[in-house]
């Protein structure tokens, strides 16, 4: 019997993944050592913009232990180009993106030449033997300067630095009114500019790729989030037959969108392997990662909110200027557009207009970083709601309550045309306020304000939602994205009753093996331990669209449920035959088919699996397999939400910020494994706090990245972060049979405005209405200083 005592779904199962990870028996790409393998090193541009007038690699090529050295010109016919999969408008400017620069470099760190050598040290050393003459060209780094008529051009042949302008207008879409009317009738208008600083995703594992061209096909190991997309695009852009390419994402050490990429380095390793006919490996240094892997955020937000004096918002105008960097990565132009549907957030705004202009600069390209577009949107609206509350002199939570979608109003179609399936903002907010002791802290705040304490208390609110679970393929098509958003799963019943699950998602820390095992254990009635989950290898997981956008469970998990149900249906036919009854007479529970009214007449799923394996006695026309797969395409996005509250002590004399409490209540629908969900929230919140307080990628005037290592790009340590007090409410999604919502990005989306709102809230009596991120002590101090000088003058 394989009876299961209690449902697996909802249990805090310890992770199956951990055993190898805590013992150092992990298969990272950089661990690969293949027979005859050579090592690749890449020479990168020291200029932000320059013409390559001459490259001489002969000295490097002739050095001892160097097998090959080559330039972009040497491989220009075969190296292919890197693809952008999201041409957001018809007239978007999409420059050619050669993996290895051929005639011109457009950002510091762009690959220029390659050495292939017997060992890593020789490869790196030999880069110094390469002689490159650059003819420097004018550089443009600032996105507003780049739009000026006389700006230097990043891509001269384009004739402009403007990549695209994308507009949404609720009056045109028929989903709301015109913001011009809201502007004309507004009793209160709040106009603000926010800057989303540039961030670097910084997964702890650097990117690494091994290409093996031996054996009649190509096997590519890559530290990637997207093995399936990598395979497709490598085939599509280099002309290599897709069926001759295998991609394996072994253990991958974090991604956060930073590995939602097809990279120049993967293409270069592919070219190098083909040139030498032997396996090659390239692993970037952290410094290379910082300067060449894509960055995130980096946009200017001009926000205008219209409201009545009672706090009811009547319209929202959003104008973005977004830095693309020098080239377009796989979804670069689409990242701000993912935010377009989220500026109205949890609120019932009657009119909304969004306009985004993408701009090229001589910087590393931007692309997806945890939340991709939605943290930016959430930050802007949650900051602005606080500004409205301050203008009206009411509690910031009260302004939110007046405008948010009430629980009984779901499903609710927003001014941005999305239909939120379920949510309960009241419940999450009430719980979070209780956990924090909101009223008590407000009283303390009043007392400290009255006493003019040197250290002031601020309370920051973020009542967020987000759209994730990417995504309905039709919607993606309507947004001009180049691919779909379905996901695939397969279930293989082994003759001993064990189960092999194949998922098209590609986990890199999220614990899919554990959660998927729990889902299958319940659905098939088999023990949790009897399920193995396979992924991340295109020879095993043939179909899939990989892991990003908090999609794996809401899309891939549903595909898995459907595949399980198909297995059960196939087994039902077999069981009925073995029990000599009609399939209608059988009920299936706890992994066992029982004849209704005769419960002793039973066959387990394992019995059926063994029966089809032997195949001695199957009904006519029944195939000797129970295996099944399923592809699920969601009808809508997933809309997790929650309320995050931050209590911050801010020192008015030093500008130092101390996060005293961080409380979050997230509603991610039904939960498969609460321990894993909580872990996702912790990590997400940490990255959101990091944007608020610590991280910023900074360039100097010549386009050199000043924050090019972990010395200067300060990702927080344990000592920098507060304990996170997290809890949940559970309002099941109605848009999928598991009732689940995405959780991977929620914390990051929610946390940043909660922290900055707390800082500004602490300092509001001193005339401070904003602090630019990251809110370092110096910036906080300067904000206080300049506000007090304004008051004085």
């Amino acid at each position, binding site marked *: 019997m394989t009876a299961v005592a209690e*449902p697996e779904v*909802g*249990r*805090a199962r*310890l*992770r199956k*993944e*951990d055993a190898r*990870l*805590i*013992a*150092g028996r992990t298969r*990272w790409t950089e*661990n690969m050592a293949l027979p005859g393998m050579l090592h690749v090193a890449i020479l990168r541009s020291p200029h932000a913009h320059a013409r390559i007038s001459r490259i001489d690699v002969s000295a490097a090529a002739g050095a001892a232990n160097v097998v090959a050295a080559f330039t972009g010109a040497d491989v220009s016919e075969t190296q292919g180009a890197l693809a952008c999969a999201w041409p957001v408008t018809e007239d978007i400017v999409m420059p050619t993106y050669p993996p290895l620069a051929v005639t011109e470099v457009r950002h510091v760190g762009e690959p220029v030449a390659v050495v292939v050598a017997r060992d*890593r*040290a020789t490869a790196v050393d030999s880069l110094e033997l390469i002689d490159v003459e650059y003819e420097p060209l004018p550089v443009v780094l600032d996105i507003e300067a780049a739009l000026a008529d006389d700006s230097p051009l990043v891509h001269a042949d384009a004739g402009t630095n403007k990549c695209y302008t994308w507009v949404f207008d609720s009056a045109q879409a028929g989903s709301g009114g015109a913001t011009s009317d809201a502007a004309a009738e507004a009793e209160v208008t709040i106009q603000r500019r926010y800057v989303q600083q540039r961030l670097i995703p*910084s*997964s*702890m*594992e650097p990117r690494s790729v091994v290409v093996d061209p031996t054996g009649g096909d190509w096997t590519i190991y890559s530290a990637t989030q997207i093995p399936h997309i990598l395979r497709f695009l490598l085939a599509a852009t280099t002309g290599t037959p897709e069926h001759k390419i295998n991609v394996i994402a072994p*253990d*991958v*050490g*974090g991604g956060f969108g930073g590995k939602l990429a097809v990279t120049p380095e993967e293409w270069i390793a592919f070219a190098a392997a083909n040139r030498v006919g032997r396996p090659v490996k390239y692993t970037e*240094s*952290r410094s290379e990662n910082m300067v060449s892997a894509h960055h995130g955020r980096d946009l200017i937000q001009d926000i205008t909110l219209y409201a009545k004096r009672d706090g009811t918002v009547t319209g929202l105008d959003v104008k973005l200027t977004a830095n693309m960097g020098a080239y377009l990565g796989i979804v670069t132009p689409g990242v701000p557009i993912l935010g377009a549907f989220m500026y109205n957030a949890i609120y019932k705004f009657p009119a909304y207009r969004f306009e985004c202009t993408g701009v090229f600069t001589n910087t590393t390209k931007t692309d997806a970083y945890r939340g991709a577009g939605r943290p930016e949107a959430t930050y802007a609206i949650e900051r602005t709601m606080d500004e409205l509350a301050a203008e009206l002199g009411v509690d910031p939570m009260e302004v939110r309550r007046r405008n948010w979608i009430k629980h*009984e109003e*779901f*499903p609710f179609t927003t001014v941005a045309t999305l239909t939120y399936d*379920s949510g*309960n903002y009241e419940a999450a907010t009430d719980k979070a306020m209780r956990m924090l002791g909101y009223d008590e802290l407000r009283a303390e705040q009043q007392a400290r304000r009255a006493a003019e304490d040197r250290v002031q208390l601020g309370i920051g609110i973020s009542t967020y939602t987000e759209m994730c679970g990417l995504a309905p393929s039709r919607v993606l098509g309507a947004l001009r994205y180049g691919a779909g958003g379905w996901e695939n799963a397969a279930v293989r019943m082994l003759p001993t009753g064990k189960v092999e699950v194949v998922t098209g998602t590609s986990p890199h*820390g*999220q614990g899919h093996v554990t959660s998927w095992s729990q889902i299958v254990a*319940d*659905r098939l009635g088999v023990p949790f331990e009897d399920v193995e989950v396979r992924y991340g290898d295109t020879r095993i997981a043939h179909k899939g669209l990989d892991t990003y956008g908090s999609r794996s469970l809401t899309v891939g998990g549903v595909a898995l449920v459907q595949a399980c149900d198909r297995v059960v249906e196939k087994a039902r036919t077999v069981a009925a035959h073995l029990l000599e009854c009609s399939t209608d007479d059988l009920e299936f529970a706890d992994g066992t088919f029982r004849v209704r009214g005769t419960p002793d007449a039973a066959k387990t799923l394992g019995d059926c699996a063994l029966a089809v394996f032997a195949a001695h006695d199957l009904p006519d026309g029944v195939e000797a397999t129970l295996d099944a797969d399923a592809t699920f395409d969601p009808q809508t996005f997933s809309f997790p939400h929650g309320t995050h509250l931050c209590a911050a002590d801010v020192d008015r004399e030093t500008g130092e910020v101390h996060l005293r409490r961080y409380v979050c209540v997230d509603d991610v629908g*039904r939960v498969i494994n*609460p*321990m894993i969900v*909580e*872990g996702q929230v*912790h*990590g*997400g919140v*940490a*990255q959101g706090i990091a944007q608020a307080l610590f991280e910023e990628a900074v360039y100097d005037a010549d386009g050199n990245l000043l924050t090019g*290592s972990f*010395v200067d790009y300060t*990702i927080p*340590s*344990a*000592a920098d*972060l507060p*304990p996170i007090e997290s809890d949940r*409410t559970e*309002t*099941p*999604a*109605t848009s999928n*049979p598991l*009732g689940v919502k995405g959780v991977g990005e929620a914390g990051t989306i929610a946390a940043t405005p909660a922290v900055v709102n707390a800082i500004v809230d602490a300092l509001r009596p001193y005339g401070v209405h904003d602090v630019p991120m990251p809110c370092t002590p110096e910036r906080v101090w300067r904000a206080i200083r300049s506000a007090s000088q304004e008051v004085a003058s």
Partner: protein
Amino acid sequence: MARISLTVDGVTYADDVAPRTLLAYYLRDQLGKVGTVIGCDTSNCGACTVLMTNADGAPRSVKSCSVLAVQADGRSVTTIEGLSTEDGMHPMQRAFHEQHALQCGFCTPGMIMTAVDLLADNPDPTEDEVRKGLEGNLCRCTGYQNIVRAVLAAAADMRGVPAVPSPRAEAPAPSAVAPAQTAEVAP
């Protein structure tokens, strides 16, 4: 080339190494001890942390990317691969598993080795002391919350104190909020 002899995870090795070879690369590339990983090139991330005996023979944590292989001559090195014994997991490994203190797992070997050294110094640390003690090890996945919890749990375990009950594993379901719309929810 320089001749070195050292013990790594209980095995004695003798090798010729280039004088500039870092211990991290020696472990990975020459010994195949790839459990120890490299996450940065500025000694900030701590992913490569191992234990190496000092001049007095006491094992102390070092970032193996900032130690030359020749400096390990005559020393004894313990990596994550040598931490567990025939009796099973080291209490710190077990605590990381039980407290969900890892997600992608890349920082985990270094984090565990640092935490082991931290407890050798201070067997009964406060939460704040754990946070400060782990300052040289970066994690991008967990927000450190469960790492701190794991180190405290391991400390209790290693002192023989009944472990702090894990609020993580098998936690009761949160209070559910009845949805207005009925979800067709899977069993």
